[in-house]
């Protein structure tokens, strides 16, 4: 944990804080990655579309991080969490911090994430924690569209030209080791699953695997073999990439402390 357990916080609040931080950080980090394409995407229509996804993700990050800050009860707000934490205090999946690479890698990362994110949000919309359920219900609609789009593009590009197929296949191979973490439960996931605040990740694993399998087949892409799943993001042990991303993202806040923006 980034902060030592506070005396007047219950254990369940700690877990909820950690959990909402994960949800928020996933959105924030992915938004940061996606927004790098704005002005540089491969077609004008695609530029506008990728900006829409990035915008949705910033919006979701704001909601989750505001809830996390509230649960933490330390007087921080969403911006404090986004701009005031070092990499070790971020709780996002390793998958979303992977560099953009070519557009194939960006799209494949998006699809692999959306195929998990959407069913995750649908399940969370039925959470026993009302505030989680409310945010998830709103976010699930956005995620449904993200999945429609990224799935459609993966299928088309997989089954497009030789080059587009090869690029998508290469992206899949690079990203596959980072997908296992999405459904690898740790004590935080388990604690929330027990109370019905969050879904059982084993159930989600099956949904994800089926959806991804069907899409890859349609895309004429070969599903990589499951090897060791890279992990650590959810506990704050990240790849080297995250530090650079945060250095850029947090630069203005750090160079002008106490500013009003």
């Amino acid at each position, binding site marked *: 944990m980034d902060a030592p357990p506070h005396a007047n916080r219950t254990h369940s609040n700690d877990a909820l804080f950690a959990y909402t931080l994960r949800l928020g950080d996933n959105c924030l980090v992915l938004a940061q990655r996606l927004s790098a394409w704005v002005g540089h995407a491969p*077609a*004008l*229509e695609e530029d*506008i*579309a990728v900006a*829409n996804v990035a915008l949705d993700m910033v919006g979701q990050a704001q909601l989750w991080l505001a809830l996390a800050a509230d649960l933490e009860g330390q007087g921080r707000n969403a911006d404090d969490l986004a701009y005031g934490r070092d990499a070790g205090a971020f709780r996002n999946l390793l998958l979303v911090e992977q560099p953009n690479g070519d557009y194939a890698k960006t799209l494949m990362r998006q699809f692999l994430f959306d195929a998990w994110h959407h069913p995750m949000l649908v399940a969370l919309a039925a959470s026993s924690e009302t505030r989680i359920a409310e945010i998830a219900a709103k976010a699930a609609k956005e995620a449904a569209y993200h999945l429609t789009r990224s799935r*459609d593009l993966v299928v*088309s590009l997989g089954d497009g030209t030789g080059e587009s197929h090869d690029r998508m296949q290469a992206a899949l191979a690079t990203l596959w080791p980072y997908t296992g973490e999405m459904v690898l439960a740790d004590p935080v996931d388990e604690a929330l699953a027990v109370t019905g605040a969050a879904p059982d990740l084993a159930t989600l694993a099956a949904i994800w695997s089926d959806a991804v399998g069907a899409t890859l087949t349609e895309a004429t892409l070969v599903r990589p073999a499951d090897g060791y799943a890279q992990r650590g993001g959810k506990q704050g042990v990240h790849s080297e990439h995250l530090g650079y991303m945060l250095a850029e993202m947090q630069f203005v806040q750090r160079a002008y402390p106490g500013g009003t923006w």
Partner: protein
Amino acid sequence: MMSEWPLWEIFIRGQHGGSHRHVGSLHAPDAEKAILNARDVYTRRNEGVSIWAVRAGDITASAPGDKGPLFEPSNSKVYRHPTFFDIPDDVGAM
């Protein structure tokens, strides 16, 4: 390089009923993606609840040179307008 993505004309029906209206065009490789692109390009401000996409090349338009024969004859059909008829005030609203 292959051929350019074809041009689509986009029609959107707004929140409050009414017909689909032409809002503009965009490029897309196929009809499905034309709909997705239209959602992203033309409904960024909550403008619509239904989208039609039509290949621009599939639209048949009237020729501007026919403007006279096509549209002017209806000018003289004044009896198609309610104000053509005088109804006595005594009859009441009609």
